[in-house]
Each structure stands twice: as structure tokens, then as C-alpha cells.
């Protein structure tokens, strides 16, 4: 950036954005095609590598990579997600927090901040896709993947805290970039720096894509579903302005409102699901029968049992981000002397995200009878194209979830739109932070450098909402999973360090050296 441009960006960020906004819509159409074309030409190979299937199957290797990682961590740490579950809840409740540390970030706050970055479209739309393709049995595999993913989160978040950077002014920076560099050095293994740079690049791309454009795009799609079609750039500009006010203008009030409303929406969502399940309590047994039977037998779904397994694993991985490394950035800023405690707290994330919220969505879809089955054979009926199970309304994705909830409460679709928009927004705010941390890791800290990232981030909100940029969105999704490739590799290298930390902590907990305060 030239000196002139830098000065302008520093002194007039609002004007710079206004200029951007003014020129964008007019060019949007041409720009869309141009960008899409550019991305398609240069990145398709990358997307193809990340999402390619094992030869002769429709099983993407990246899904296997995440699930194998989660299984290895589960075994290596001796099913820590079950052993430490109760203790994790005590930690979140503040039982082990020193009252003199009041005013610092609590475990509860670290958990909810990280959760607001993951709870989102995956829980609402992703599950519906999994069920409509993989049948009820997909739920079983989704829950299993969620339970295993808890061990991945534990590993990455413990490392995130252990190897974070603490600065003189009291702020901290952490995440996979830092544990790759410092952890590898400590173990005397080369390559940490290269992996950290790779991770940071993928993280920036992922923050523009899956954590931003994809969210804006889906939020716009949901709004138009309810209020009718209108140009996407309008949604994009509105969202970009709000994001701009929060991340550049430092307008904490908006962020604070969102952070307060998001858990509230999640509670309404789960609460409504529980009411619907309760209203159909006689169907609960049948729903679980379908889930278990579908998980191990061919109940007529696409791909049979393996199809259910792929869909379940895939959606769980997409939803809870275990192994991706993003949570390690979010959790590393917490104030704790024991890295292990943050690992324990973070392992609740996939549990809440996948095992509870995703399962609620699945149960409501199954119980309200959205899936059409043949009364004589008991097998599910596929749609005409044979790509998914026939649903009552013919919908899939968010629309299917909306149908299921609206069949009990017709007003729920409006709540759902609000939930999708707010979830999208809070995910964007979280990812803007993850991206910024990766950005400053690569380019160093500094107001101008950070402003450049933030303006780029706002710019991508508009692009994401304005267009159906298939290639761009594919690429950004791929970037998020590329983060997992680098991150899980680093976790394998560093897991003995986590084990030592964990054993030391558990021993001191057992001996009574670590005690409850209240």
C-alpha cells in the first residue's frame, strides 16, 4: 500500500468504506463473474484436493482425517472427554475460580465466546442436509463424531493456552500458529515455522470464506426465503456496515447485543425443539429406533449404512470445527494458570454444539415426520433424482428444518430467520478475530496493518451476500479444512506435551493441591 493510501485509510476509514460501497453495487455483476472466473481457474485444483474422495467411494478423505484424528486423541488421552466431563462442568460453573480473580475472563465466558463462533448454520442447515441424504441413521454417526471431536478440542485448546504470547500490556495472542512455532521448537522438531505460516494463510482465507462470505450468503438466502427476493448487495452492505462499526469502529454495544442475543436464540431453538419432542413423546422411542437401525442397516437411504456414516461424520465436523484450530485461538486469551483447565472447558463445545443442538434438529425433523417412507416395506422413499430422501414438502437444508419446526409452531420460521442472521453475524465477528490473529502473526501488529485486514473483511461480507460465487465459496470452505490438515498434524507432534500437562493437573487435583473455592 502506498504512503498516500495508508494515510487515507488511517484518517478516513469511514470514507474509504463509503467509497467502496458506492462503487460496488454497480460493478457487482461484472465483478462477480470476473472473481468467480478467476477463482475457478486458479483454485479448483486446491478445492478438488481437499474435498476429493477415497478412490472408488464417496467418502471425502478430509472427513476421515478429522475423525481419525479425533479417535487417536480419544484413545491417547484415555477417553478424557468422559473422565473429565463432570470436572469440566465444575470449572465452567466457577467452582475452581479464585474469587480474587473476579473481573478476569471466566471459563464460562471463554466457552460462550468460542461457542458463538461455531453454533450457526451447521446446526440448522447442515443437520437437515445430513438427515435428508443419510436418513435418521446419520444422527448416530453425527453424535459419535461429536463425542470424539471433544478430544480434538481438548488437545488444541490446552496447547493454545500453553504456548500463547503474553505481552507487557496484559493482552495475549494465541492459537495454532504459536504452538506450532514454540511447541515444535521445544520438542526440537523442525518445520514449526513453515506449518505456522501455512496455517495462518489458510486461516485468513477461511476467515474471508467460511467464516464470512458463506455466512453472509446464507443469511441473505434465508431473508429472501421469508420476505421475497431482493438484491443481495443490500443485505451485504447492511451487514458490512454493522461488521465495520463493530470491528473497526469499536462499537462494542452491537457486538454485546449480539453476544447476548445469540445464546438466547440458541436457548429458544433448543427449548422449542424440546417442546416439540415433548408434544410427540410417544414418538421418541420410534425416533431413536430409526436412528440406531438406520446407523447399522440399510433403511433405503442413499449409499445405505455407509451413506449415513459419511453424512453424519461430515456434518459434525463441519459444525463443531474440532481439529480445525479456530477454537484454540478463541480460548487462548483466557486468564488461567493451568492450560489443562481451558482444554477441559473447551471439550464441552462439541458436546453442546453437536451432541445437544444438532441432535435436537435431527430429532425434530424425524419426529415431525418430514421424511417419506414406504408404509409396506418401511424403507425410505428417495426423490425422483435419487439424491436424497423424499420429504413431505420437497425441501432440504434450512427450509427442511423450518418445515419441521413450523409444523408445530407456524410462527417459528420467522424466529429461525432471525436466528440464522444472528448466528451468521456472531460467526463473522468471531472469524474476523481469528483471521486478524493470523494476519498479525504473518505481518506483525500495527494499526494500519490491522485496518487493512478489517476493511478487506468488510469488503468480503458484501461479495459473499451479493453473489452466488460458487467457486469462491468452495475455495473458502476448502481453506477452513486445510487449516485442519496442518493443525491435526501439529497436534500429533505435540500431544505428548498435552499428556504431561494433563497428568500433572489430574494428579494435583486428586491429591487435593487444586481445590474448590466454593
Amino acid at each position: 500500500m502506498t504512503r498516500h493510501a495508508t494515510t487515507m485509510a488511517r484518517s478516513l476509514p469511514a470514507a474509504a468504506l463509503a467509497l467502496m460501497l458506492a462503487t460496488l453495487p454497480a460493478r457487482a455483476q461484472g465483478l462477480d463473474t470476473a472473481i468467480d472466473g478467476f477463482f475457478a481457474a486458479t483454485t479448483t485444483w486446491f478445492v478438488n484436493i481437499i474435498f476429493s474422495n477415497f478412490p472408488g467411494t464417496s467418502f471425502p478423505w478430509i472427513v476421515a482425517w478429522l475423525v481419525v484424528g479425533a479417535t487417536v486423541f480419544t484413545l491417547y488421552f484415555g477417553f478424557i472427554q468422559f473422565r473429565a466431563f463432570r470436572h469440566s462442568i465444575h470449572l465452567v460453573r466457577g467452582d475452581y475460580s479464585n474469587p480474587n480473580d473476579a473481573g478476569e475472563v471466566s471459563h464460562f465466558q471463554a466457552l460462550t465466546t468460542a461457542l458463538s463462533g461455531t453454533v450457526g448454520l451447521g446446526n440448522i442447515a447442515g443437520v437437515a442436509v445430513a438427515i435428508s441424504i443419510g436418513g435418521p441413521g446419520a444422527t448416530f454417526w453425527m453424535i459419535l463424531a461429536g463425542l470424539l471431536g471433544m478430544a480434538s478440542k481438548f488437545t488444541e485448546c490446552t496447547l493454545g493456552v500453553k504456548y500463547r504470547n503474553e505481552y507487557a500490556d496484559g493482552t495475549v495472542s494465541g492459537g495454532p500458529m504459536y504452538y506450532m512455532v514454540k511447541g515444535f521448537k521445544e520438542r526440537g522438531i523442525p518445520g514449526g515455522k513453515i506449518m505456522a505460516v501455512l496455517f495462518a494463510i489458510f486461516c485468513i482465507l477461511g476467515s474471508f470464506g467460511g467464516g464470512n462470505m458463506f455466512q453472509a450468503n446464507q443469511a441473505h438466502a434465508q431473508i429472501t426465503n421469508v420476505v421475497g427476493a431482493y438484491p443481495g448487495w443490500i443485505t451485504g452492505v447492511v451487514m458490512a456496515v454493522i461488521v465495520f462499526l463493530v470491528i473497526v469502529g469499536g462499537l462494542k454495544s452491537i457486538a454485546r447485543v449480539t453476544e447476548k442475543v445469540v445464546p438466547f436464540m440458541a436457548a429458544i431453538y433448543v427449548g422449542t425443539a424440546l417442546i416439540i419432542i415433548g408434544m410427540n413423546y410417544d414418538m421418541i422411542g420410534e425416533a431413536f429406533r430409526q436412528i440406531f437401525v438406520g446407523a447399522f442397516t440399510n433403511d433405503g437411504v442413499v449409499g445405505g449404512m455407509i451413506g449415513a456414516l459419511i453424512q453424519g461424520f461430515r456434518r459434525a465436523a463441519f459444525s463443531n470445527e474440532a481439529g480445525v484450530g479456530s477454537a484454540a485461538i478463541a480460548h487462548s486469551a483466557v486468564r488461567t494458570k493451568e492450560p489443562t483447565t481451558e482444554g477441559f472447558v473447551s471439550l464441552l463445545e462439541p458436546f453442546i454444539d453437536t451432541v445437544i443442538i444438532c441432535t435436537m434438529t435431527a430429532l425434530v425433523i424425524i419426529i415431525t415426520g418430514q421424511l417419506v417412507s414406504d408404509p409396506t416395506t418401511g424403507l425410505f422413499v428417495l426423490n425422483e433424482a435419487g439424491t436424497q430422501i423424499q420429504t413431505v414438502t420437497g425441501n432440504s437444508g434450512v427450509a427442511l428444518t423450518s418445515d419441521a419446526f413450523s409444523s408445530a409452531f407456524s410462527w417459528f420460521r420467522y424466529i429461525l430467520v432471525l436466528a440464522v442472521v444472528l448466528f451468521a453475524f456472531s460467526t463473522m465477528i468471531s472469524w474476523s478475530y481469528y483471521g486478524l490473529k493470523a494476519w498479525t502473526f504473518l505481518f506483525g501488529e500495527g494499526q494500519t496493518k490491522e485496518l487493512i485486514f478489517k476493511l478487506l473483511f468488510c469488503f468480503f461480507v458484501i461479495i459473499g451476500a451479493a453473489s452466488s460465487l460458487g467457486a469462491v465459496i468452495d475455495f473458502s470452505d476448502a481453506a477452513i479444512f486445510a487449516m485442519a490438515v496442518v493443525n491435526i498434524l501439529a497436534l500429533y507432534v505435540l500431544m505428548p506435551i498435552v499428556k504431561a500437562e494433563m497428568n500433572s493437573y489430574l494428579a494435583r487435583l486428586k491429591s487435593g493441591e487444586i481445590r474448590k473455592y466454593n
Partner: protein
Amino acid sequence: MTRKIVVGYDGSETARRALDFAMARARAEGNSIVIAHVLEWSPYSFLTPSEVEERHRRRSEELQRAETAILAPVVAEVEQAGIPVATVLRYGHIAETMARIAKDEDAAMLIIGRMGHSGFAARIFGSVAATLAQASPVPVVIVP
């Protein structure tokens, strides 16, 4: 033996009246004063990632500000009046934390100012004075 009077002090006018009341009592009975200031804080509020990152620095700043702007001036004043004085600065739910301070200090009495907002806001959020009147471990004086 001298006993402690804990005064809730937040720099407001009513808190000032509470402190004056406490000083009169302390002088008359030879007690000491503990000036307590509580910074409203809930471990269950929600923060954005950047707020999480800055929290530790902000906390130091907040403590510093409370110490210099709120506590230091009145401490000097109470000392000049010849009354032994100490301060307590904590984060937490205001009423609960005040009650805990009174207990920890083994106070003879807790003196607070009436918070001012009556009616609607107090009905929804609960008033500190009303909560302490019900939950305080030591006698409470509420100064209007």
C-alpha cells in the same frame, strides 16, 4: 476494642452521605472504617473475542481508576479526620459482594447509600439496598 464499619462507596452523592454518617458513628464510638467499592461484574456475561483478549488489561485499568479517582480522595479525608481507614476493591455482583466483604471483615455494621432509582428499574433489576436489607450478615444502615 475497635470495630469495623464497612461503607459502600461509589463516588455518588448518596454514597457520600453514607460515608459522612459512618464517619460520625466512627468518631463517636471509636470505630474504624472500611471503604468498600465493588465493580459490577458477572462471570456469566457474554464477551466478544477481542473483549476477551483485552480483559486483563482493562481490568488493571479499571482497578487503577477506581483506586485513584474514587477511593484515594476519600481515604485521605477520613485519615485527616483521625479515623483509622482501610479500603476493599472487588469485582462482582454488588449486593452479594458487599455482604461478603462485611462478613470477611467481621464488620460491626454495613452502611450504604440508597441507590436512588426507585420504582421500575429497581423492580426489574432489584435494588442493592433491598437485597442487602434481606441478605446482609451484619446490621445494615441505609442512608437516604
